[in-house]
């Protein structure tokens, strides 16, 4: 019986470990992180451009990198696969993904932030050598993919200043979760 009570009592959403009355608010465990070790792991790039490293690249520079390191999985022009299709703006009007199950999501028709492209390629691509690309290569690839998706000009240079200013076609399509439980099916 006691076991059952503990089991039931121990799983509420407000469960907290019971600590002695003398236990402090903080324990002093762990050690201070150094600026250097934070810098090594702090990969993320935000929509406002925070986190973008120095560097630059254009579509033509990125095209060469793409051919060597990306085309085998994503196709010669970003459309052919076999893995995720990267290029495509169809349909130019509307955002009918909810209604059309066969409509393929691409960078051009679905990604809301250009900075996410830098963040993701830099952290996870290419699949067989993740984290191996240099900043100029990533900027070039991002420029190439944005140009292939008709979002920037072929001559546009992507760098820490220009990339956050790129407005993606799907930027305004995303809304917060409005499901709240209760009887309504949303």
């Amino acid at each position, binding site marked *: 019986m006691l076991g059952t009570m503990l089991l039931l009592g121990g799983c509420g959403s407000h469960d907290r470990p019971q600590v002695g009355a003398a236990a402090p608010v903080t324990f002093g465990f*762990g050690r201070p992180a150094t600026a250097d070790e934070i810098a090594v*792991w*702090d990969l*993320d790039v*935000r929509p406002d451009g925070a986190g973008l490293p120095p560097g630059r690249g254009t579509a033509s520079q990125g095209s060469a990198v793409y051919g060597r390191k990306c085309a085998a999985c994503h196709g010669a022009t970003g459309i052919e696969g076999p893995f995720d299709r990267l290029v495509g703006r169809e349909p130019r009007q509307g955002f009918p993904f909810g209604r059309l199950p066969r409509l393929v999501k691409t960078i051009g028709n679905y990604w809301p932030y250009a900075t*996410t492209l830098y963040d993701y390629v830099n952290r996870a691509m290419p699949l067989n050598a993740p984290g191996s690309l240099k900043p100029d290569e990533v900027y070039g690839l991002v420029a190439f993919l944005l140009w292939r998706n008709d979002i920037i000009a072929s001559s546009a240079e992507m760098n820490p200043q220009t990339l956050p200013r790129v407005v993606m076609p799907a930027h305004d399509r995303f809304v917060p*979760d409005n499901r709240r439980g*209760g009887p309504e099916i949303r």
Partner: protein
Amino acid sequence: MTHAPISRRALLAGATGALGAHALRVTKLAQDPTKVPGSAVTPLGERSPFERPRRIPLGNGQGISYTPLQDCCGIVTPADLHFERHHAGVPAIDPQRYKLLIHGMVERPTVFDLEALKRFPSVSRLCFLECSGNGAAGYGRSRPDLSPQLVDGLTSTSEWTGVPLATLFREVGVKPGATWFLAEGQDAAVMARSIPVEQARDDGLIAYGQNGEALRPEQGYPARLLLPGWEGNANVKWIRRIELADRPFMTREETSKYTDPLPDGTARQFSFVMDAKSIITFPAYPVTLGDRGWWQITGIAWSGRGRITRVEVSSDAGRHWAPADLQQPVLPKCHTRFRYMWNWDGGDTTILSRAVDETGYVQPPVEQLRQARGLGTTYHFNHIRPWRVRRDGTVVFGLES
């Protein structure tokens, strides 16, 4: 995420692939086990050679593997049968070299090793963990030869042990304006999600224990984020970094993936909570009912919003519903076992279950969910799962394409 088409080979592998190994072990059995001494004690137990539950893996390092729900009883999933979903394979991490870095909008940027995490007051709780793409079968395309494993096997329940995020947040001094944090894994995808601080502070854990032992590598060894009731992807495995901030980071996994396009031309973002659902795990494909008469219909129900308060079963294709028994314990955000004794008259019929949670949410029929979400949606499939029972006793998955 992309689900590969389910091949017949994958279907059969789970059911029959191990029979050959069985036969070898069975030959060692004594005719009468009371007449010969049994085998010796061992340092590590094994399943009976008669029991061969297996996950069904699909894909490679970016793949998924399904829990054999029809082979499980009660509510807990054995750790070696817990479903898998990885974005770049399972990393091998030395616990001696493991570090969790918490930085950003905090007073004291701190590195915790595993020993430090285990010194904090710990908590254990049972809860389900479910891939947000679970249940895709039968929503758009369907087929009759789907088992519970292939319909809903991307959910599992464990007892998780770890340190509350609230404790770690106090330890590092999270600043008042910090409303989101990035949770980042140490896998080859360096998988990262933005998480609201409030929810994580309520019941989030950095978990290092699973069902009484260390986490399995496939579940994030040596430590992972655990956000009870929230889609699996947000529960970042192999967690190495938490960065507090005043806004979300907009990673690929919360923009390009794990968002829900809706019929009105928008896409729902940060749809973390898994809504209530249930599935009958017996009788279900591929079993055959041997005879008319009494059978126990049983299955699991769960909700990311709290406790399951009711499960109803219909044995006449939804014309009548009757309450099923809920087996104790009934815990919030946890698989709940239900059972219902059914006197089968031997005729063709369809059996269904529907779950109700403590918010009053009722698991919807597929038509209702399709109307709300559209056919193009790719996550959060919690529609009712029907099973057709045919006159010859065979049972098949009952949703039409």
